[in-house]
């Protein structure tokens, strides 16, 4: 009998997994649980932060790419116009100031032509918070027109204070009637 260890004492000191045939109390104490959960939570927090950051990053990359594409398409649309028409168009676009992408006449016209509810609603969702702003500069003598377009998007969809943008510039040449 004297050889038998005092299991009760032992269990007070450490958490011991229950033995198969242990008739003593099995499971974890509240403290043990709390400590475990705390440690787990602490370890999960950076992971969650990382996940969230990555999600935001991916979202932002997506938005950036979309902004880049829409800026390029705005520029390409202007480039294909004859010089005078291009000048008139960019003048009117500049006068509009910063405008929602979905309000763009060309985009609306395209959507009307496509006439697909799915695409329309997808566009409305995707470009909900996108804005664009045009600027130009002209050298009348040489008939060179500089077109600048900047497309803005929200870094955080719910926060309209932090905006990122994509800016593109190109030169449009008119015929100098040489």
């Amino acid at each position: 009998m004297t050889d038998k260890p005092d299991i009760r004492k032992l269990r007070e000191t450490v958490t011991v997994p229950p033995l198969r045939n242990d008739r003593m109390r099995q499971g974890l104490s509240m403290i043990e649980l709390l400590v475990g959960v705390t440690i787990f939570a602490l370890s999960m927090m950076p992971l969650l932060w990382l996940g969230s950051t990555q999600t935001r990053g991916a979202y932002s990359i997506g938005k950036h790419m979309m902004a880049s594409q829409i800026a390029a398409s705005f520029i390409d649309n202007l480039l294909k116009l004859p010089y005078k028409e291009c000048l008139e168009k960019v003048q009117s676009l500049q006068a509009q100031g910063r405008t929602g992408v979905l309000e763009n006449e060309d985009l609306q016209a395209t959507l009307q032509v496509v006439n697909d509810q799915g695409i329309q609603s997808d566009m409305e969702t995707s470009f909900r918070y996108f804005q664009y702003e045009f600027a130009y500069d002209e050298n009348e003598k040489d008939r060179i027109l500089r077109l600048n377009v900047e497309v803005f998007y929200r870094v955080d969809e719910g926060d309209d204070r932090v905006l990122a943008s994509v800016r593109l510039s190109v030169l449009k040449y008119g015929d100098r009637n040489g």
Partner: protein
Amino acid sequence: MRGQIKRERGIILVMMRRLSAKKGNVTVILLGLVSVMLIMVMALSRRMSSHTQLLTLSDYTQISRYFLESYAGDVLQQINLNVNQPGSYLYKAFRSPPANYRLSTSFYKQSGMLKEMAEELGIQIQSPPTITFSGSEEIGYPPGFECPAHLKGTEKKGLLEIVCQAKFYGRMYTLRVQYPFTVVMRMTPVLKDFVLFADSIAREHGEDKIGPNDNLNIMLTRDGRHPVDFESGIVNHNRMRPGNKYRPMIMLPPLDPVEYASAAVSGKIFLGPADDSIFLNLAGDTREEALDTVGQAGSGQVSASVGEMFLVSPDTFKVFDAASKYQHMTIFQKPDGTAVRMMGMEVPLKYNQLAKMGVLGFSQEIVPQYSESIFSGAAYTVENFLNSGSNASEFWRLLKDGGSGYGEGFMALASGIKLMGLKPDDINFGHVNREVFGNVLSRFFVITFWWPPSGGGVPLKYDETRSPGDFPTTTVSLYTYKFEPLFANLRFQDFMSRMVSGKNWNPRMSSIDNLPEGFMPFYYDPVGKKKRILTNNDFEAADGFKAGDRLDRMLRNWFRVTSDNSPPMNGIEVRVGKSFASGEEFLEAAGVANDKFMVNGVVYVSGSLKVPKLEMKNENIGGGVILVDGPIELENITRGYQIDNSNFKLGDYGAMLFRGPAHDHYQKWKTEITQENFLTFVSLRGDPITIRGETLLGVHLINLNPRQSSPYSQITWRSVRKEIVFCGGIACNYLDLPERLLEFGQIESSCRHLRAPFFIYHSAMASAEPAYAVQLMENMRGYMLTAERSDGEDD
């Protein structure tokens, strides 16, 4: 049991040793977790960073792409600026034979805006760009256009390759782009040699080619004039209304003596189609003698005659020899002793007998019903000469036949279009050396009167069926005289009175080489010294082009707008350099707002085109062809020349063409307007070309794709009140002559001699060396953008 307890104790001891708090087990676990997290963070961070890098690269590429396109555009704009400037390096380079080689870039200077943009974006431009010709090949021609060897390959198409480089954030971006270009003639080959090309004008003749539906021979003529007012009671024509004013369309000969004598530069004429015949009534003037006297010019009162009998050369008749000269003579006498005089010649017969052969043009004086007719009070009627019924010639029957004819009043109507201008005021000079293509025949009358020695006279009546050797006889006082020609080979038909070209000859039934007797072609060949019909086989342009097919078919093919399924014609379509969505867009690009009109090639304009007054100087006009898919309206094109349309006139009688205000103006235009700045306006689908200005200088108007098969107005003059001065060429299917003459009639004549608009050919159109324009298209091909790390640069 004991054993089991032992084992358990052992395990707990082991556990106690490993998990003892004193030994820092929790710390170890935490550290382990933190390490794992750090590794994860690093991995994720790296991944994020590569995402960001990719994104940045994408942005840089986008920015570089637009920058390099701007750079290439800058180069292209400067090429465009130089390439059509005579004397520039690029002007010569593009016009050299097709070859692939690298061009010098000495002409190129970066524009200020490109530099600014580069600085702002932090891009380093790599200069100079590389410009290379690649893949040049000659442009062909539609069937029939026979290009001379020395011009082969001068019209060509190819690709101009521009390579631009720029350094941006450690990467070298290279844009290689190809722009198609063409080198094309500024004017239409073959057609530019014509002052007038009307390829379906025969349809305006009507079925009978004479009478009320003949809309070519419509100009009332009297006393060597075309009275402005179309008087009632003379003739009943379907389109010519009594009370209206009309003036003829006269294609003036060159106002330069050298050009006047040169068939190459005097402006050719084609009246078609090639398989139909056109009969032009030559205007008559029985007062020819008085006006032939040059010395009368001093009075200042003499007006030029519109009579066209100068076109009837003596060699038209077998009974005369080439050296014969016309004279104003009495052909026969009326019972009251007055002489019936006209231009003609005496025909010597055997036994010192004489016949007199007079030539009469269409004029009111020969209409029997006219009180002042030459037949009025005569013992002979027109039928005594021209016969009647089935024995008369076809056209004469249509006028006279049994009361059902159209009426002799049509003998007063001469052609509304004059191809050789006015009667030359210097009869020794001959008429203009101008080639007339097509089956164009002159229609006029020959009146032959035999004067037997004993007095009296016998008209030689038209009789085609009479035996050739059956000459008339006359008996006076029991003595019978016989008409006997001097030469045995002459037949009765060579002498008889007749309407020359008095039958409707159908060229489809017999070739022009077998033109039946009794017809006189309009064109006189000064080399062969005979009248003959010119076909495409006789055509040779001043630049060497020949016509291997019917002229009407060739030129229609040239301007044909092909559908998707039809084979390309190698005509004007393949030569189009730029297309404009509207007339306004074209005018903007041509630089009208900047007082320029630079076409420089072949351009297509969709829709209508209203060209405002073009009063800029020649150097600010870049010649070319403007194809308009809609109606065209033209205002004055004066090219900076000051022209008083109210006082634009020929010289005094005796020197009408080679002196005077018109001549002086032309001498300036002749040298200053060249093919480099000649303007060609083409109505592609037969829409009308409306002219609202009096003066058009250096202009070629073309409307060769009819909207309908029946004649209609293709080129019209509207709202024009001052004298028309037109220097260039006209090509159309129909003139719709009654309408044109009515339009011309609304204008007060500025010249006493030429009571008609001034239609003058410009000899630059027939230059031996055609002018070319280079057209660079903006649609890029072979686009390739590459990026590579610059030397010594890391990401």
